[in-house]
C-alpha cells in the first residue's frame, strides 16, 4: 500500500539563492581581487602556503555549492573526488614525469568522468539516501587507495611524494609564492566559469531541478542528464582542487582524504552560505582556521570548542556568510539614503 504525498506543497530541501544575489557586485569583487593579489607580497612563505590552501579548499567548497546549492543534490562524498584528483596528479607527475600544470586538466577530466558515472546510480536516490551513498563513497576511498592491487601506482599506505615546482622562466619568487599565483589564476578562471554556468541555460536547468524536480521534467528538462552533469562538473572542479592540493602539500596519502574532509567541506558550504559562490572562500577560511583557533583555546577540549564556535555561527547567521553580505548590503543602502539628509 503506498502513501500519497502532495509534492506540490513540499518545500524544497535546498533553498534558492536569488540570481541577482548570486555573486558580489563588481566593486566588491575588484577589491577582493586586489587583496588576493597583493596578500603574498607582505607575508612569510608559510602564510602564503596557508593562503594557497585557502584557495584550494574554496574551490572544493565551490564545487559542492554547485552540486547542492545549484542542483539540490546532497553529497558527503566530495573527499573521494578530491582524492582521485590528487592521486591522478601525483601519479602523472611522479610515474610519468608530466608537467604539473598539465596534470590539472587531466585530473579535472578524470574526476568529471568519475562524478558523471557516480551520478547515474545516484539518480534514483535523494536526500538522506543520497547522503548515505556519497558517505559510502567517501569511506571507501581511503581503503581503496590502500589496496594491495594498486600499490605499485599509489604507494600504498605511505602514499607518494610530490615534487613542488619552481617558478617558471626564472621569475624571482619562492615556490610557495609561484604556486599561490598559479592557484589564484586557476581559481579565478573556475570561479568565473562557474558563475557563468549557473547563469546559463544549464544553470537554470539545475535550479529548476533543485526547486521542483517533477515540474522540471514536465517542462522538458532532461533531469537525468542535468543531474549527472552537475555531479560531473562538481567532481571535476573538486578533482582540480585535489590536484592543486597534492602539489601544494607535496605528498598524497590515503588517510589525508577521509570522511572528515568531506564533512569539513560540507560545513564550509553551510558557513559560506549554501549556493552562494562567493561564500566558498569564507567557508574555506572557517574550516582551515577555526580548528586551529579551537585548539589554541583548549587543547583537551578542541573538538568541543570547535562545536561551540560552529553553533555560534549557525545561530547568528543560519544562512551563512551570504546572510552577512545581505545585511551589509542593506546597511550600506540605508547609509546612502541618509547622506543627502545629513548635508542639511
Amino acid at each position, binding site marked *: *500500500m*503506498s*502513501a*500519497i*504525498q*502532495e509534492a506540490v*506543497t513540499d518545500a524544497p530541501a535546498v533553498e534558492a539563492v536569488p540570481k541577482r544575489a548570486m555573486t558580489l557586485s563588481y566593486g566588491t569583487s575588484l577589491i577582493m581581487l586586489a587583496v588576493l593579489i597583493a596578500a603574498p607580497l607582505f607575508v612569510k612563505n608559510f602564510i602564503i602556503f596557508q593562503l594557497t590552501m585557502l584557495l584550494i579548499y574554496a574551490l572544493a567548497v565551490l564545487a559542492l555549492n554547485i552540486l547542492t546549492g545549484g542542483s539540490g543534490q546532497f553529497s558527503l562524498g566530495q573527499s573521494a573526488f578530491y582524492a582521485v584528483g590528487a592521486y591522478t596528479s601525483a601519479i602523472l607527475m611522479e610515474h610519468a614525469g608530466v608537467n604539473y600544470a598539465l596534470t590539472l586538466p587531466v585530473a579535472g577530466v578524470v574526476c568529471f568522468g568519475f562524478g558523471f558515472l557516480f551520478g547515474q546510480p545516484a539518480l534514483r536516490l535523494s536526500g538522506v539516501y543520497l547522503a548515505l551513498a556519497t558517505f559510502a563513497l567517501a569511506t571507501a576511498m581511503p581503503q581503496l587507495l590502500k589496496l594491495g592491487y594498486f600499490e605499485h601506482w599509489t604507494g600504498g599506505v605511505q602514499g607518494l611524494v610530490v615534487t613542488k615546482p619552481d617558478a617558471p622562466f626564472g621569475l624571482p619568487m619562492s615556490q610557495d609564492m609561484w604556486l599561490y599565483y598559479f592557484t589564484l589564476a586557476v581559481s579565478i578562471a573556475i570561479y568565473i566559469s562557474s558563475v557563468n554556468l549557473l547563469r546559463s541555460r544549464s544553470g537554470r536547468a539545475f535550479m529548476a531541478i533543485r526547486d521542483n524536480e517533477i515540474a522540471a521534467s514536465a517542462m522538458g528538462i532532461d533531469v537525468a542528464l542535468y543531474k549527472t552533469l552537475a555531479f560531473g562538473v562538481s567532481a571535476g572542479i573538486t578533482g582540480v582542487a585535489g590536484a592543486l592540493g597534492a602539489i601544494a602539500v607535496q605528498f598524497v596519502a590515503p588517510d589525508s582524504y577521509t570522511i572528515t574532509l568531506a564533512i569539513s567541506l560540507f560545513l564550509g558550504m553551510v558557513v559560506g552560505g549554501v549556493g552562494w559562490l562567493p561564500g566558498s572562500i569564507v567557508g574555506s577560511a572557517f574550516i582551515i582556521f577555526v580548528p586551529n583557533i579551537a585548539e589554541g583555546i583548549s587543547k583537551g577540549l578542541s573538538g568541543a570548542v570547535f562545536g561551540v564556535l560552529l553553533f555560534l555561527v549557525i545561530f547568528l547567521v543560519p544562512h551563512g556568510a551570504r546572510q552577512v553580505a545581505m545585511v551589509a548590503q542593506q546597511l550600506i543602502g540605508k547609509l546612502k539614503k541618509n547622506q543627502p539628509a545629513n548635508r542639511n
Partner: protein
Amino acid sequence: MTAMLNVRDLRAYYGQVQALHGLEFGLNEGSLTTLLGANGAGKTTTLRAICNMVRTTGSIEFEGALLTGRSTENIVRLGIAHVPQGRGTFTTMTVEENLQLGAITRKDKAGVVSDIERMYDHFPVLKQRYTQQAGTLSGGEQQMLAVARALMLRPRLMLLDEPSFGLAPLIVRDLFKILGKINREDKVTILVVEQNAQLALELADKAYVIETGRIVMSGNATEIANNEDVRKSYLGY
C-alpha cells in the same frame, strides 16, 4: 448582539509583501457566512490570519478572547476548526486515525467514539473506507474527511478554505448541503471562503466580498447575489 468573531484593522504580511490592508468584519454566532473574491484577493490569508499562521497586526477577537499572539494550536483549542486549502489530510494515516486526530485535544473518550459514529452518519462513504489510508481517497472523499475531522473538535467556529476546489459540481452540492445541516443542527458558526460564488451564495446567509486585501462589500447573501457588480464579476451574467 456582540459578534462571535470580531476582526478590526487586520493587516497581514508574507515577508515584505502586504496581503491584507486593514480588514474589518464580524461574524455572528450561528451564522453561515461566505467570503468571496478572486484569486489573490486575500481570502486564504484572512483565514490563516485568524489562526495566526501568517504575520499580522490589528486585532482579532473570538468570544471576547484576543487571538493575536496566541499560537495556532492554542487558537484551535479555543474552539476554532480550520479546514485548510488542499484539505491537509494526513495522507499516510487511515481515515479513522484522521478522525481521531481531529479529537486529539478532547478528554472525553466516550464522546469521541460517539462523534466518530456521527461522522459516519453524515458521511457514509467514510465508514466504508475507515481503515483505508487517507491518501488513497478521491478528492471529494478527502474533502468530506477534512470536514469531518474539523467537526471532531466540536468547534464553535469552523473555517473552510475553498472546499469546492477540484471537486465535481454534484459532489460540491452534497458537501454544501451537509455544511448547511451542520450549521443549523449542530449550531456551528461557519465561515466559508469560496471562488465558486454561485453555490456559496445559495448556501450562506451573509456574504463579504474581498478585493486586494480589503472588504469592498458586505450584506445578506441574497442581496449580494442580486448586486449587479457581483453578478458581472463573480457570477458571470
